[in-house]
């Protein structure tokens, strides 16, 4: 047997899981409940305001982390969950899960870069 190279993906999984645990609930609350219910003032997510945040270096970095870390967490866990549900085509599942995560990472990087 040989030492596995899983630490690469596992560290992304662990970091993403921690990040998701801390920030995802409040973000879902903001975009999914506070905004539609009017609890959040309309100008809070106004284009100019969000754009200003996304145009700063630190803002780009934070937004990138918020999107890309939980994506890799979800992708790795989904791969294992597929196995838990009896899907044994792990080679295929692996490419789908990590492929989606990589795509989301690249797209969000490009979007942030172009802002």
């Amino acid at each position: 047997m040989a030492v596995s190279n899983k630490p690469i993906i596992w560290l992304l999984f662990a970091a993403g899981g921690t990040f998701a645990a801390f920030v995802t609930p409040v973000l879902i609350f903001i975009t999914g409940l506070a905004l539609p219910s009017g609890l959040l003032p309309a100008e809070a997510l106004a284009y100019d305001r969000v754009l200003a945040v996304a145009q700063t270096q630190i803002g780009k970095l934070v937004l990138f982390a918020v999107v890309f870390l939980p994506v890799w967490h979800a992708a790795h866990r989904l791969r294992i969950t597929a196995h838990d549900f009896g899907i044994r085509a792990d080679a295929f599942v692996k490419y789908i899960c990590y492929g989606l995560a990589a795509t989301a990472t690249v797209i969000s990087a490009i979007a942030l870069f172009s802002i």
Partner: protein
Amino acid sequence: MSRRPYIRPVSKVSWWLSQPRYIRYMAREASCIFIGAYSGVLVVGLIRLSQGAAAWGAFLETLQSPVSIAFHLFALAFALYHTTTWFNVTPKAMPLQFGQTPVPGGAIIGAHYLGWILVSGLILFLVGV
């Protein structure tokens, strides 16, 4: 005496229905579907933001549709379940010990919840709720 060990069949698909602890585990794992899907919402948000004011406005409009709200309610439930299951096992993954005295697991978990409240409060404050 002949040996003829018998291997009991186990369902690959429905094994987790046999024990409440396995069902809780699968619920925890299923949270990834919502964490992943919500990340997808955020990716779309970033794309729309990069496309200008009209696109961003349409994105905010979509967020207020009933389908979006229903999705967010489910996602919030699973995200909260993820948070609690994640925090509650932190003393196992990262135990702390000073000399011979281990830090009680409850203190490590409590510190995570405290940090969570502070981070959530800070984000809400910055957004302007």
